[in-house]
């Protein structure tokens, strides 16, 4: 979609006076059936997941897999050398399974480390990061999203997106400064 002047359209955006107004607007946009849209606020808004109709994120599954692979890595790297390849009796401690208390700290740490890595990188991937620039920054008002602005942005690639109807919806839901955001 392009503007009459020939600019490619990224989205239509609106500003809301408060977190509560943004929350109510999100419910209306959700009920209107939009899929590719997002809200922006300086702080997390409780209950926004439901208001936006977001399903449970699959991040937790990735983190679980990361944690389990960390645990297995530690177990193999510890029991492999210490029990099978080069068993060495230290402090009169056994070299079989019963030496596991000495190995727990490493198992714990690698579980946490791998889970943290998994969550960090999967989260980046899911959010389309890292990237140098985002079209939403073409809108000057948007800089207040980190200060005191509450924004709702519906992307033009959403199948339900039409200029007039989307504008009506944003107006009806109490949006102010409704604007078209250019893509480049």
């Amino acid at each position, binding site marked *: 979609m392009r503007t009459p002047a020939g600019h490619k359209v990224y989205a239509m955006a609106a500003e809301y006076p408060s977190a509560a107004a943004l929350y109510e607007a999100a419910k209306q946009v959700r009920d209107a059936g939009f899929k590719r849209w997002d809200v922006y606020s300086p702080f997390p808004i409780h209950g926004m997941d439901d208001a936006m109709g977001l399903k449970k994120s699959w991040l937790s599954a990735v983190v679980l897999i990361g944690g389990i692979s960390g645990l297995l890595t530690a177990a193999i790297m510890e029991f492999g050398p210490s029990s099978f390849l080069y068993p060495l009796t230290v402090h009169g401690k056994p070299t079989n399974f019963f030496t596991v208390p000495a190995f*727990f700290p490493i198992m714990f740490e690698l579980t946490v480390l791998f889970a943290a890595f998994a969550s960090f990188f999967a989260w980046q991937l899911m959010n389309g990061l890292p990237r140098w620039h985002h079209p939403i920054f073409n809108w000057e008002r948007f800089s207040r999203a980190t200060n005191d602005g509450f924004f709702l942005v519906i992307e033009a690639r959403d199948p339900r997106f039409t200029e007039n109807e989307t504008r009506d919806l944003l107006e009806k839901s109490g949006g102010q400064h409704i604007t078209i955001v250019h893509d480049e």
Partner: protein
Amino acid sequence: MSDRSQALPTPEGEYFESNRFAGLSVLVGLTAFVALTLSIAGAMIDPHQFSFSWLFAFAFFFTLCAGCLFWTIVHHATDAEWSVVVRRQLENIASLAAVLALFFVPILVLRHHLYEWMNIPPGHDPAFDAKRPYLNWHFFLARTIFYFGFFILASFFLRRLSIRQDKDGNPRCTLLMRKVAFIALPLFALSLSFGAFDWLMGLNYRWFSTMWGVYIFAGAAGSSMSLLVLVITALRSAGYLKEVVTLEHYHIMGKWMFAFCVFWAYIAFGQYMLIWYANMPEETQYFLTRNTESWWNLSMLLVIGRFFGPFAILLLRSIKKQPHRLCYVAGWIVFMQMLDMYLVVLPSLHGTGIHLSVWDFVSVIAMGATLGFVYLQIVGRTSLFPVRDPRLIESLRLTN
């Protein structure tokens, strides 16, 4: 903010109708009476075994009550909002500390059976003589009085102020309770830690562990949160708090159960591993007793049942949002706390292996039924939740 349209509760609050449960109250009271009578018989017939059984039951119920006091204090100190709706039950259980102080009297009477160090004459054991400035009867008694004084006063003031706010809704009460909480927080840490040192670690005066206070605290906090889940669910299934406590509150309580399941394991393992690794006889004796003979089985059950099982189950988000399933886990954790206290106390008596005694059961039933009876008497006296707390509405509309 939430999708749920919340009808505000009436300013009168919700009351537990004691008449409706008069039958239950009488039944619990009768059980308590019979079991307490049997306990007196037990103290006469077999004072040695009975004193340990009684201390085991005391440790179990004391940690549950102390944990509830901990959650009340933390609620006020951190100015929490989610726990407003469940706070009154925490206050009710915490104020049972006064009854537990009475239950400590038999331990004082039977102290010579429990605490070996009380029978050692001066000059007999140099290792003990070095500890005598701390481990002597008068100081022990003074400390015990101090601990109970703290637990009783703190729980009394927090409950009293909370009830006063029910009547006038004065926000000053909230500020006052916060001040009480700030004073109570360090005193709680000291009282619970040193109480654990004196009453439980003192069973073997040769043994010591600097982690001991934290270990007992970790078990207390996790199991009392589980007890809260059970109490709240019982009240809900009796028809109370239906509109007040939501699945979101269960979710948070489940998260705390999970957190303290991990914390308990962290502390318990930290204590175990350092002693295991250093391998010094004066430290390993505690675990040697508990990891040999038939005690080994119970120790393994504790490791798996207190940590690995609940950890795997509570990892799921869905289980925390299903009260009845969460209750199975909560009941199991409370049972594991009982096993934990059993493993702390009884091996010092039966070093050669598990030896179940009828007095173990009688003590637990006597104390449990008495505490249950007193709880049923006080739960109906006030609203089931702090009905005029300034943060009540935020708590009702909780989402997480």
